[in-house]
């Protein structure tokens, strides 16, 4: 083993280490106590803080005797049941030593023997989607059922003893939930977002001292949006803000901020990411829960976005000021206006991924040839596309690219009635969209666009269809009752894996078929080839296999790969970041290339380098590869400078995309000659690295000169 190669040395770390016997025994004592069910610190906490049981409320409580929650059943223990009384402890009514509200009224929460509910376990049961240790990005929802003797407004607080270590370390995680309580059972949605794999016990209390009656904490089926609508729901474009006397504006050039509020849920862009949070609005008060953000690496970061995040966390009130929306709090103020939506010209005919649409403009309206496809705002990222239309008399081809974040695309004006021709992206998911031409102001407009499954039985895999099948315990075996359905899209068609009658099945377009996947399989790609739906899988048998999903035939075609793609009937395998192989689905090696430690791609057939999706992957994500692409043409293959060099590019790149598809390009004197399938020769004025090194960062398309010969 080389002592000079830390990467190789890393493998040596994986060996047992003896623990001092005294410490081992000490840890075992705690583990054994847990094993034997001895009271842990957390249960002691619960006993100290558990609200008192009070009153003969059995009659009304009986209505809540059973609360069915998702896949599980929660049994509410009526107050006259001795088992409950025996586990209830009276809390002092006049003082609090731990900062908790004084004298919570009568509350019984859940059915755990100490009166508390393991909400996460319930979520696990109810939704089947949460697993211990899983990272949470979105809020989950529980429901509180209150059987209250009188009507009125009450506030609910949820406390989370996160670490189970400090009896007084009780943290309100979302403490401003309000409900108008009517007599009798009532429900209020309480949203929270656990962020740790520990079993966490939540208690719900009525801190206002009222006689709230009995309450059960249960868990509904999985929801991602909670709370209720308010008069402030909608989209609000941020215009200006003040933080501690410092004014800042909307970082339009680096990612305009639009705050979306929808039934208690809010989101806004943070540079190229999306921040999501729960929004609590009541009677002019404003508050937000933790902000959960996507974690993409952004090409640029703006101070304004950072200030906006800081400010919105401190906002406490919400109000209208004329046409403006104003959030304010100590030292902060944020102002918003309603965004002006472009004209809606109408609804396009029902379409599918990959289809061509013709846009007609009866009034000869002038327009640009660049369009965007935008999704309605939702949790997570909004996938969008940038399209270029083909119009008569204008030098432009219909094309599209996926887009995240800001972009710059050269546009030209078109007039006349059209039709302009656009192609719906292959990878678009079915759903409702808006096709807009927002970049030719003031004549901006949109069409409603409805994308539905294609009728053609041809699938083109998108870059988002990789799934990993593993069970909750990480043993890489799929267990029927733990396997949640995993959905992905193939050519806009929703496809999902799931369990049915103890078999792994594939559901697509209303069909259910059993597939020959095995425990531990990692599904790498699915595509149609020669009218067969084929999956590429790898697993711990150190092989990559092609599985015919219709016949169930499984064939090993090459070594295990960390990534693999099906492309034009060929399996492209990436091997431990050190090489690429193209293999036929029968297993034969077609060609290979290696990537050495300096991240250089060295072809097995000098003179021809195939950069396909793997090449894109590296080139797009690592500046070193961009540099390499530039120098490779000069240095690597022959060691001397070349004026021309033949290589193959299989574009498109994902994200940063050149829309041309060069089947076999040649670089001559700084000009990339790019033959097209139809025989045309497109020339691209490029400098070394320009094609992939976009000046404004990821997601921005660089302006380039182009000329058709």
């Amino acid at each position, binding site marked *: 083993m080389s002592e000079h190669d830390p990467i190789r040395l890393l493998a040596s770390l994986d060996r*047992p280490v003896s623990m001092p016997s005294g410490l081992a025994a000490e840890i075992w004592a705690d583990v054994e106590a847990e094993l034997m*069910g001895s009271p842990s610190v957390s249960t002691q906490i619960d006993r100290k803080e558990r609200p008192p049981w009070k009153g003969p409320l059995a009659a009304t409580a009986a209505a809540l005797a059973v609360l069915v929650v998702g896949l599980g059943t929660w049994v509410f223990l009526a107050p006259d049941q001795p088992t409950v009384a025996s586990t209830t402890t009276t809390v002092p009514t006049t003082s609090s030593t731990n900062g908790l509200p004084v004298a919570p009224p009568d509350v019984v929460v859940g059915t755990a023997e100490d009166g508390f509910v393991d909400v996460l376990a319930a979520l696990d049961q109810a939704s089947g989607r949460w697993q211990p240790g899983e990272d949470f990005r979105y809020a989950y929802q529980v429901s509180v059922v209150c059987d209250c003797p009188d009507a009125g407004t009450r506030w609910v607080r949820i406390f989370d003893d996160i670490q189970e270590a400090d009896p007084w370390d009780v943290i309100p995680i979302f403490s401003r939930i309000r409900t108008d309580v009517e007599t009798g059972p009532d429900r209020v949605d309480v949203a929270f977002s656990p962020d740790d794999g520990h079993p966490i016990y939540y208690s719900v209390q009525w801190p206002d001292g009222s006689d709230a009656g009995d309450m059960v904490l249960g868990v509904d089926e999985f929801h991602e949006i909670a709370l209720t609508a308010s008069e402030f729901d909608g989209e609000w474009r941020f215009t200006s803000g003040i933080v501690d006397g410092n004014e800042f504006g909307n970082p339009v050039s680096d990612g305009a901020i639009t705050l979306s509020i929808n039934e208690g849920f809010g989101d806004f862009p943070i540079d190229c990411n999306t921040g999501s949070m729960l929004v609590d609005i009541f009677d002019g008060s404003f508050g937000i829960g933790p902000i959960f953000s996507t974690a993409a690496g952004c090409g640029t970061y703006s101070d304004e976005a950072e200030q906006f995040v800081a400010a919105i966390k401190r906002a406490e009130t919400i109000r209208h000021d004329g046409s403006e929306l104003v959030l304010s709090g100590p030292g902060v103020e944020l102002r918003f206006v309603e965004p002006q939506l472009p004209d809606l010209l109408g609804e396009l005919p029902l379409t599918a991924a990959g289809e061509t649409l013709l846009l007609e403009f009866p009034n000869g309206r002038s327009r640009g040839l660049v369009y965007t496809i935008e999704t309605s705002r939702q949790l997570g990222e909004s996938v969008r596309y940038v399209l270029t239309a083909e119009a008569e008399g204008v030098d432009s081809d219909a094309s599209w690219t996926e887009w995240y974040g800001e972009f710059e695309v050269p546009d030209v004006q078109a007039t006349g009635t059209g039709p302009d021709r656009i192609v719906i992206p292959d990878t678009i998911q079915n759903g409702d969209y808006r096709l807009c031409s927002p970049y030719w102001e003031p004549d901006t407009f949109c069409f409603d666009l409805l994308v539905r499954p294609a009728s053609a039985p041809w699938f083109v895999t998108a870059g988002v269809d990789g799934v990993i099948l593993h069970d909750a315990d990480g043993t890489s075996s799929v267990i029927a009752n733990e396997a949640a359905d995993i959905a992905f899209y193939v050519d806009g068609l929703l496809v999902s894996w799931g369990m049915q009658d103890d078999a792994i099945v594939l559901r697509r377009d209303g069909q259910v078929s059993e597939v020959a996947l095995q425990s531990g399989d990692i599904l790498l790609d699915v595509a149609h080839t020669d009218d067969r739906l084929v999956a590429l899988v790898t697993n711990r048998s150190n092989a990559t296999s092609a599985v015919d999903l219709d016949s169930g035939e499984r064939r090993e075609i090459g070594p295990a790969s960390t990534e693999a793609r099906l492309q034009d009937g060929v399996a492209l395998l990436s091997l431990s970041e050190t090489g690429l192989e193209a293999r036929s689905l029968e297993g034969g090696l077609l060609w290979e290339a290696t990537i050495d430690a300096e991240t250089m791609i060295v072809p097995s057939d000098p003179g021809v380098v195939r950069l396909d999706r793997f090449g894109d992957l590296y080139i797009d994500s690592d500046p070193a590869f961009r540099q390499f692409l530039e120098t490779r043409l000069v240095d690597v293959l022959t060691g001397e400078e070349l004026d021309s060099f033949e290589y193959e590019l299989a574009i498109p790149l994902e994200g940063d995309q050149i829309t041309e598809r060069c089947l076999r390009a040649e670089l001559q004197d700084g000009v990339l000659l790019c033959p097209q399938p139809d025989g045309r020769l497109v020339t691209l004025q490029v400098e070394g690295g320009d094609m992939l090194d976009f000046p404004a960062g990821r997601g921005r398309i660089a302006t380039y000169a182009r000329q058709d010969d």
Partner: protein
Amino acid sequence: MSESGPVTDGSLLDPISFKDFYDRALPVIYGYFFKRVGGSHALAADLTQETFISAVRTLQRGARVDSPMPWIVTIARRRLVDHIRSGSGTGRTVVRDAPPEDLSTSAAEARLTAALGMLSADHRLALILRYVDDLAVAEVANHLGRSLRATESILARARAALSAAYDEVADV
């Protein structure tokens, strides 16, 4: 009890059986953490304890365990990921306290452990999952909550950062 043989819920929940399993798994889990948290003995011990308690609670909730050792290593990995991602493990300072007396490490290992401790949380986690735990890049991406593309990028930068830190440690 066979390490790889199936174990029923009941047998593993039995204190005697679990103690047997504990004795076999303890050095594995402790070793797992010790080398991955920058050589901190105390932190490794804490995470080890949390792992076993979490395992017990999972069993008590009725989880079925077919392969106990991979199962508890998976729990340990999640604890490690949680620990690093929670920010507790984001420091770039080499944290090493007195190792157990019987812990013998080569100079190269000690140097590597120290270098790992100097990396950012994302870089350290990515390298550990990829090269120590030998996970596929797709699985690493899953743990990191990143795309494959972003994970490849992180791994590339992490390798460079580790090499630099490794050299830096040698210079000290």
